[in-house]
């Protein structure tokens, strides 16, 4: 139940700068997911909001109050740690009650809060157990319960699912989504390196890279109109194919030629007359690729590897230069017997992305 503003926030350890120019407005009730490659500072940023790391530049405000120097416990935040961070010597009940006991709340109040949280998280039967007697998923629920009990303005999640096994991760992810739905006014910030978590949970995703924010947007915005090559390749799996190209016709529909695969493509991206001859990167998601017999196509090459996954088949095309990432096409259904064959592939003009100097042509004026 709060809005957060990060204004020009920066973090440096001595002379080493790890984050800078972080500007972000988070509205009440949003679930913001920070994603980025490891070491991009997403956890550091979360810990700065929590107050566990000092903010070395810029301001953080929660509900209009400057929080830079407010102690963590008075910021109205609660955090769920990757390692759960349960107090191992306390029962589930005491773990959840600890913050309230510290705050000198009345016994009845504490009991009511703990019981309510335990009910929401289905932990009623485990209240008197020690954390070591719980499974990973239960421990994570206790950690979430410890946050709920405090009724914070902002929930912070630091990779809460990464210690769980795959099946449990899906189940817990859905529980977190349901929890968010049950508390529509609470603001949540969630750090993960898992795209699926980011895409499914987020109301908006913040992609962090190169010490700053690469792009902020709803999951589908990031998927459909990535601002730059980094976001384009980071969101989506397998990553978007990028191929060198040159603009040969400008206008509301741009035509590019792709020398490597000897292809020519029309796209729906508008360009200006002076863009003719512009060197670009043509980005096509593997799932947008389809085989074609037409004269205009994106890539022609020999299929080197075929991965039949049942619902889809992934084709890896040999590239001219061995160190380049392979061109990948993801075709629905089962396709066999393609290995070693030469194939032309293309994509819908509306599904093609163009990047010049790393920035999307759609975003270059922004």
């Amino acid at each position, binding site marked *: 139940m709060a809005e957060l503003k990060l204004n020009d926030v920066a973090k440096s350890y001595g002379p080493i700068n790890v984050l800078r120019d972080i500007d972000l407005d988070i509205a009440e009730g949003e679930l913001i997911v920070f994603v980025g490659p490891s070491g991009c500072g997403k956890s550091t940023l979360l810990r700065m909001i929590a107050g566990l790391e000092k903010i070395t530049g810029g301001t953080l405000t929660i509900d209009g109050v400057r929080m830079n120097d407010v102690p963590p*416990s008075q910021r109205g935040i609660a*955090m769920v740690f990757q390692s759960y961070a349960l107090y191992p010597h306390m029962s589930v009940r005491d773990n959840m009650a600890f*913050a309230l006991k510290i705050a000198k709340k009345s016994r009845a109040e504490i009991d009511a809060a703990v019981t309510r949280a335990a009910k929401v998280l289905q932990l009623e039967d485990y209240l008197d157990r020690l954390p070591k007697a719980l499974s990973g998923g239960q421990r994570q629920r206790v950690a979430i319960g410890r946050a709920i009990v*405090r009724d914070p303005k902002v929930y912070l999640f630091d990779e809460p699912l990464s210690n769980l096994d795959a099946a449990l991760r899906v189940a817990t992810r859905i529980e977190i989504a349901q929890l968010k739905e049950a508390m529509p006014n609470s603001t949540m910030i969630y750090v993960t390196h898992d795209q699926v978590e980011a895409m499914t949970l987020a109301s908006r995703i913040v992609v962090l890279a190169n010490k700053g924010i690469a792009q902020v947007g709803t999951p589908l915005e990031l998927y459909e109109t990535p601002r730059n090559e980094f976001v384009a390749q980071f969101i989506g799996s397998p990553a978007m194919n990028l191929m060198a190209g040159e603009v040969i016709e400008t206008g509301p529909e741009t035509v590019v030629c792709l020398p490597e695969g000897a292809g020519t493509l029309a796209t729906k991206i508008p360009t200006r007359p002076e863009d003719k001859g512009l060197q670009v990167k043509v980005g096509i998601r593997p799932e947008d690729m389809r085989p074609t017999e037409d004269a205009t196509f994106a890539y022609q090459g020999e299929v080197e590897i075929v991965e039949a996954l049942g619902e889809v088949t992934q084709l890896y095309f040999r590239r001219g230069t061995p160190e380049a990432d392979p061109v990948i096409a993801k075709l629905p259904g089962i396709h066999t017997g393609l290995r070693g064959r030469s194939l032309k592939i293309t994509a819908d003009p509306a599904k093609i992305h163009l990047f010049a100097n790393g920035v999307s042509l759609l975003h270059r004026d922004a």
Partner: protein
Amino acid sequence: MSPFLQGLITICLGVGGCVAYFWVSNLVLDRVIFPARGRDPGRNIARANMVRPWLFLFPALFSVTLYLVYPVVGSFIRSLYNRDGDVFLGFGNYRALWGDDGFRTALLNNFLWVLVVPAGATFFGLIVAQLTDRLKWGAIAKSIIFMPMAISFVGASLIWKFVYANNAQIGLLNAIRAFFGATSPIDPLQIPFWNNFFLMVILIWIQTGFAMVILSAALRGIPEETVEAAVLDGANPFQIFFRIMVPQIWPTIMVVWTTITILTLKIFDIVYASTGGNFGTQILPSYMMQYMFRDDGRATAIAIVIMIVVLPVMIYNIRQARKELD
């Protein structure tokens, strides 16, 4: 023969002998006693496997019996006889002990030592471990505090005898008193009752380093996130220390505590070197020393009493250490 060669031969014989024992005895068991052939080879294998652990345990059991069980039993039997070992007294020595004021003082003092020294050393060790943890010069502070561990008890007692010297020129304590205007020096080791505590300070001074090293390692083992979670939960540094950190290292604290308790129950040198057990500072081990070479053979009885006093602490210590391993 040069001593070096002698040593080498001894080592070879010893190690070779051990290897030969295990190898040969195992071979005899498998080939001669329960060979895996005949009408029922399966049963013989099962039997051999039941005997094998005892075969391998035997050397250890034998030496423990020879060097530990036999002396305990022997001491106990001896404690039932007079000094020359020819008159059976029953529990006469124990009765004589109980009737002796010196013994009762020693027993009482020993309890005081056990109460104060482990508590003091563990407490200071814990505080020092926590306070030096994040300091740049923490490592130096720790090594200085650890240093008394390397000093013998007698050496430490002599150092502290200077601190306690009945003279403002030599004694640090009296010098401090003089600084605050006291005119005549006192002898701290002759103040009835309290002199015990002045002696305990010496052992606390020695053992704090031990407690500090172990507890410092334990504190480092606490997951950082639990502390951060407590910070977010609003706990102040004292609450974090006493309600989050200390409970997590409690098993280690208990091991340190009981280890120092056992050491305290055996301490003798400090009392012997500083007061010789006079002025009401006698404790059981020094009391035993006093009787060892004279009087009526009650020294073994005291030894047994000391053992009985140490035993429960010892058992608790081992249990705690095992629990910590789990």
